[in-house]
């Protein structure tokens, strides 16, 4: 039998994409199409008092300007998907005249060309009554902070505890031999997929139907929410995701501006294209992270972990996003990681501020949890004089402990956590590149368990996540023997088309070239509520394809046995040919079988004619991937520059369907995380104006930051997932920031205690090094000629 699962199969989309024959949203052009640009708020907080578009409308190139007033009259509120207990926002308006962040969409201009639409934008006069801004979440908790929603009497949009609460956990800290406490922070990030958001919307007045080509991770979710906000039935809306140039979480819901662009198509009766430009992306697409943890780790006299707790203040931005306090919640449930704790818990406060809302991004809460837990553990090792690897191993759950129920409601499934850590530990033990002069070197490790493959629908109901957690796979053999796989998950560059094809081809014992995978179009794809988020496409969507493909193979074997007058147990399948074992010449090709089957001819009694199987896969649990990483860094004490010189990953994502794609996901994820560790930071001035709105100021990682990596996979199948897969798109990003941070701490132990916040940019590092007195030359503070 051909083994496709586990093979390094080339990605089936690449020849098309790499030769410029992909179809991204901006490649779509329809006859009579107009171009939209958004009128966006230029202040952080206030009320729109004037919106004068008369001069813009006087231009003959301009077809429409939708004002905030018109938009409010013609749209309904957008429901939020993940609601925390007693969350004050359950819906947000698509249009409003109340401004709470720079970049908030207020209205739409539609013109013959993008340039004339931007010209019109120039002459639209928007006036405001301005209110005070508040950018920082902790500042927004102050008694005298400006209130975004005065009716609440607070800026806290939701507040709740996870796991063990104060009364249960405080006595453990009080009685502990050793407590490490830090204020740890993860910066605000912009997501920056290479393709910004965008859509083309077409309203057919005859059939009263809306077709939307959009760059999204979640076509059905977009369809359902467009229908709600535009007052349509779901069947009137068709959403199509063609090629998607990356999502990373930023395209996991319907944005207000996307709804407004569709409204513009319905208003003008002409197809409308809206493409977010890069400058716009920094304010219009939801940000991520921006959270402060006051976190504590308690240990007994033997270095055994007793408890971990964090008081989390998360910055939600101007309103709760689609996922609201979800990232802080996921940080909480995954805070214990791979260790035993008697008690573990968090207190969460989600806070609104006059900034772009924060939502999903690769690593969703788990990157923050790893930063907090693994910095605390490293600091404990430093303070106790323990080896960081040994201290971790001493407290780690072993394979014999699994399955294991954590204090934060997780039922870890399978794997060998210590083995992954021992392997990276052995790698760093072998390394002996010393510090030289002003270049310090150090190695660090970190380890985690990851929540992937969201998720059982009933668990999503329990946590207030208003989307189903199942996926449906449809596998069909056409009359000519070609194979079509349909799934509700979306391809966004992660390679899911290839890996679903591998699963189906392996189940049917046909070559890859026989299989086509169709995704992204709500008119043809099976319903997917959650779509391609949360490292679930392969786990949940792939599991459905495994089962549907397996059932279809069994049917084909029965049909072949009937036609070949053999027992089904004697049928062998190889490369699409069904033969009777030991009877040369007694065989049928898949095309021969399928051709008759679709005629309804020569079927065994009781067999259906169609060769299509559908499986609805609602897993009984999420699946828990895990990994250990190690980094070797060099720190220039004089410039503060950190270079990652070597990097090791030992990762377990269950069955690895395509190791080449898996390696790519892990390496890309680590690169993303190195950007978080060293460079990326979305910043605002005190008036709420974003100040990092181009790549001059928002520094992304580049190839020069990324060392060659040593990536290896342990493959412990998920026991409850057909095919055994676990998610792997996020692990690299989750663990790499803290791995780099721990290596930096090892290189410069004098500042280890202060390494509590990323990015470890040259200026932040230089400042910490300087404050630690590690600059031997006369500094500016002892410089008599300094002008400060």
């Amino acid at each position, binding site marked *: 039998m051909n083994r496709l699962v586990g093979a390094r199969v080339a990605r089936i989309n690449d020849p098309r994409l790499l030769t410029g024959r992909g179809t991204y949203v901006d490649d779509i052009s329809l006859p009579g199409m107009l171009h939209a640009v958004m009128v966006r708020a230029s202040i952080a907080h206030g009320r729109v008092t004037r919106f004068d578009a008369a001069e813009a409308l006087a231009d003959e190139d301009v077809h429409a300007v939708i004002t905030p007033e018109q938009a409010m009259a013609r749209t309904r509120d957008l429901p939020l998907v993940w609601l925390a207990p007693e969350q004050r926002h359950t819906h947000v308006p698509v249009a409003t005249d109340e401004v709470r962040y720079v970049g908030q969409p207020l209205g739409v201009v539609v013109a013959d*060309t*993008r*340039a004339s639409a*931007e*010209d019109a934008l*120039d002459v639209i006069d928007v006036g405001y009554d301005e209110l005070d801004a508040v950018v920082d979440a902790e500042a927004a908790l102050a008694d005298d902070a400006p209130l975004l929603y005065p009716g609440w009497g607070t800026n806290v949009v939701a507040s709740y505890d996870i796991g063990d609460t104060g009364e249960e956990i405080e006595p453990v800290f009080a009685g502990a031999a050793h407590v490490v406490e830090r204020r740890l922070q993860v910066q605000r990030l912009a997501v920056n997929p290479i393709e910004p958001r965008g859509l083309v919307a077409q309203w057919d007045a005859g059939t009263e139907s809306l077709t939307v080509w959009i760059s999204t991770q979640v076509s059905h979710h977009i369809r359902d929410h467009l229908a709600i906000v535009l007052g349509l039935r779901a069947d009137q809306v068709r959403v199509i995701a063609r090629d998607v140039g990356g999502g990373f979480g930023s395209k996991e819901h319907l944005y207000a501006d996307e709804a407004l662009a569709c409204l513009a198509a319905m208003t003008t009766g002409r197809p409308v294209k809206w493409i977010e*430009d*890069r*400058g716009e992306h920094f304010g219009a697409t939801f940000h991520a992270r921006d959270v402060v943890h006051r976190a504590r780790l308690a240990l007994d006299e033997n270095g055994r972990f007793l408890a971990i707790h964090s008081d989390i203040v998360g910055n939600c931005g101007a309103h709760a996003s689609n996922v609201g306090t979800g990232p802080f919640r996921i940080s909480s449930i995954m805070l214990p990681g791979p260790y035993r704790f008697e008690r573990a818990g968090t207190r969460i406060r989600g806070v609104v501020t006059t900034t772009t809302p924060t939502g999903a991004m690769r690593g969703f809460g788990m990157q923050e949890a790893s930063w907090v837990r693994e910095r605390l553990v490293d600091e404990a090792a430093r303070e106790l004089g323990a080896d960081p690897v040994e201290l971790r191993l001493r407290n780690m759950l072993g394979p014999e402990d699994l399955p294991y129920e954590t204090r934060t409601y997780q039922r870890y499934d399978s794997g060998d956590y210590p083995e992954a850590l021992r392997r990276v530990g052995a790698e760093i033990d072998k390394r002996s590149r010393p510090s030289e002069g002003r270049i310090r070197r150090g190695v660090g490790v970190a380890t985690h368990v990851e929540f992937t493959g969201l998720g059982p629908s009933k668990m999503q109901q329990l946590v207030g996540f208003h989307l189903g957690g199942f996926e449906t796979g449809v596998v069909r053999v056409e009359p000519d023997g070609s194979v079509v796989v349909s799934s509700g998950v979306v391809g966004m560059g992660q390679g899911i088309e290839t890996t679903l094809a591998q699963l189906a081809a392996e189940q049917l014992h046909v070559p890859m070239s026989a299989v086509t995978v169709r995704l992204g179009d709500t008119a043809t794809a099976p319903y997917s509520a959650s779509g391609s988020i949360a490292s679930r496409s392969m786990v949940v969507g792939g599991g459905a394809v495994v089962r549907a493909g397996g059932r279809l193979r069994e049917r084909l074997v029965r049909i072949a046995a009937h036609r070949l007058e053999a027992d089904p147990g004697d049928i062998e399948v190889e490369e699409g040919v069904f033969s009777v074992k030991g009877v040369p010449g007694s065989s049928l090709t898949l095309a021969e079988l399928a051709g008759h089957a679709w005629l309804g001819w020569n079927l065994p009694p009781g067999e259906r004619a169609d060769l299509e199987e559908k499986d609805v896969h609602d897993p009984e649990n999420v699946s828990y991937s895990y990994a250990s990483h190690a980094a070797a860094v060099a720190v220039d004490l*004089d*410039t*503060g*520059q950190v270079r990652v010189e070597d990097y090791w990953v030992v990762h377990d994502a269950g069955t690895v369907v395509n190791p080449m794609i898996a390696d790519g996901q892990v390496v890309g994820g680590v690169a993303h995380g190195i950007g978080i560790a060293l*460079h990326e930071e979305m*910043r605002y001035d005190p008036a709420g104006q974003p*100040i*990092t709105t*181009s790549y*001059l*100021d928002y*520094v992304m990682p*580049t190839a*020069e*930051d990324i060392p060659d990596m040593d990536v290896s996979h342990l493959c412990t199948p998920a026991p409850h997932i057909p095919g055994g897969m676990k998610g792997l798109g996020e692990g690299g990003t989750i663990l790499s920031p803290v791995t780099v941070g721990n290596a930096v701490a090892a290189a410069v132990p004098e500042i280890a205690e202060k390494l509590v916040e990323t990015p470890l*940019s*040259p*200026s932040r590092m*230089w*400042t910490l090094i*300087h404050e630690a007195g590690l*600059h031997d*030359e*006369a*500094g*500016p503070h002892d*410089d008599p*000629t*300094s*002008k*400060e």
Partner: protein
Amino acid sequence: MKPAVFSYLDPRTLEEALDAVGEHGDDASVLAGGQSLVPLLNMRLARPEVVVDINRVPGLDTSRVEAGAVRVGALVRAATVEKDPALADALPVLADAVRHIAHPQIRNRTTIGGNVAHADPSSELPAVLAALDGAVVLRSTAGERTVGWEEFFVSVFTTAREPEELVTEVVFPVRPDLEFRWTEFARHHGDFPVAGICCGLDVEDGVVRAARLAATGVADRPVRLREAETALTDAALGAETARAVGELARRAVDPPSDVHGSGDFRRAVLATLVRRTIETWPDRSQRGRRGAAA
């Protein structure tokens, strides 16, 4: 990101180009490589009424080595300077500095004249001009004048070029007695540097006989670090000198803080660049002075 409406002129001779800038003056922007102007137009941060595209003007795209100077036409591309063997021979530091400007694709368009005329305070070539005591040639319908770097660079994005003038040539004097080096610190190769220096030394038997030191990224325009030059002159190469000169460099500037760091950080990076450049300077005097064989 589409530019506001502008009129577009593409003169075919230098005379036509000078007429165009003469007529439109402050209302015109000159388009050469477009490295800086095109993004500024697209972001509508620049809104000229007229764009004068000089790419089809003949005679501005050549460079020559003559009479102690490398004279580079305003339209010569950065990539050309990077690869031209005659320029590399006459003034290797020019290619060294140019290689730090953006990325190869961009350097295929970037022009030397445009880079200098744009006067970005973190740009490389202005500091090279400062170190070499270079000059910029300006032409208008009224005639031609040559302006020394110190007069030419006025402030951020501001030069002595009058609105009716065109930069036609950039003059990099050759100082065969000095060896020049470019060093910079940037977040990534091709980014604007936090700080960069152009250092020229004449070293004989381990002693500095003459020194030039200019920096970018640490003020509103390129700066010469003259106290540091004085301290270097007649000093012995080595850690002690390097440290003292780095310290003088630090004290010579007072850059503002921005998203990439505080002014103190920039000064410290400058001091480090200076110190390390001097520390690692090879004394070649044992095997003959640079160019002595020619």
